[in-house]
């Protein structure tokens, strides 16, 4: 249980909720990352720039968080996260995330943070389905295949 980090998780989650609240009450838009990225195609030029700026903000904020975080909370390590999968799995996973979030109309941020906060039943169903299929996938990869 040494890997359980409740403080940084709750604080970070609250910041994500704050960011989603800001985009809603300022811009009237839902902070669903898959929807904001997906909405760039088919292209609608007048609707594109805010999407790009939000998406560019994500790695900018994450870089700041990775630098500042460890000095604020001891739960946050200075080491950078890394992917631990082979290329075929990475490619399949990326395509499934892209196709699935477009078909299902949202991801962990849109259905998860925004949808659940708005008490959307559709989003609750989506969250339960993708949590279940993700957990089943991890179970197979970690406990069945090896």
């Amino acid at each position: 249980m040494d890997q359980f980090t409740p403080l940084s998780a709750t604080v970070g989650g609250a910041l994500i909720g704050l960011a989603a609240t800001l985009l809603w009450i300022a811009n009237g838009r839902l902070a669903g990352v898959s929807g904001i990225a997906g909405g760039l195609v088919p292209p609608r030029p007048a609707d594109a720039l805010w999407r790009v700026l939000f998406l560019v903000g994500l790695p900018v904020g994450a870089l700041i968080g990775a630098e500042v975080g460890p000095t604020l909370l001891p739960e946050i390590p200075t080491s950078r996260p890394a992917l631990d999968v082979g290329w075929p799995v990475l490619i399949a996973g990326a395509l499934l995330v892209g196709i699935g979030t477009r078909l299902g109309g949202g991801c962990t941020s849109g259905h998860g943070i925004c949808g659940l906060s708005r008490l959307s039943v559709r989003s609750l169903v989506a969250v339960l389905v993708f949590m279940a299929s993700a957990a089943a996938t991890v179970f197979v990869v970690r406990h069945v295949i090896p």
Partner: protein
Amino acid sequence: MNGRPLALFAAALSGIVFGFGLAVARMTDPQKVLNFLDFAAIPRGGWDPSLAFVMAGGMAVGLIGFRLDRRLAAPFVAAAFQPPTRTAIDLPLLVGSALFGIGWGLVGLCPGPAFANLGTLAESILLFVALMLVGSWATGLILALSVKE
């Protein structure tokens, strides 16, 4: 909205705070996400409940934040609130969410953390984001065509 500097500033600021929150919550770490999704570890020990606390923290703010619109005629820097147009619980929602979950469980990255990790400039992250966008955009174009016909 492109012509409104304040709206663009708000979108950029929201993205930055969102990315900052993801890094602080450590949801940019795929292993940490997978350690939450590994529910078989609950009886065996070593399960990491952190992601549930991220959701709880986000909803604690969001449940209040998303209600503020009731006090506003319009968003601060845009013409109107744009809630989701789709509300039905239909087959695309179920199939799409199931497919997304498989991809998420395979790699440990969902769209937010995938973009947030772009700053590492790792080849694997660049490829993941590129293919994720190809999957989303191709699906969007196919869906748009099927609606028109």
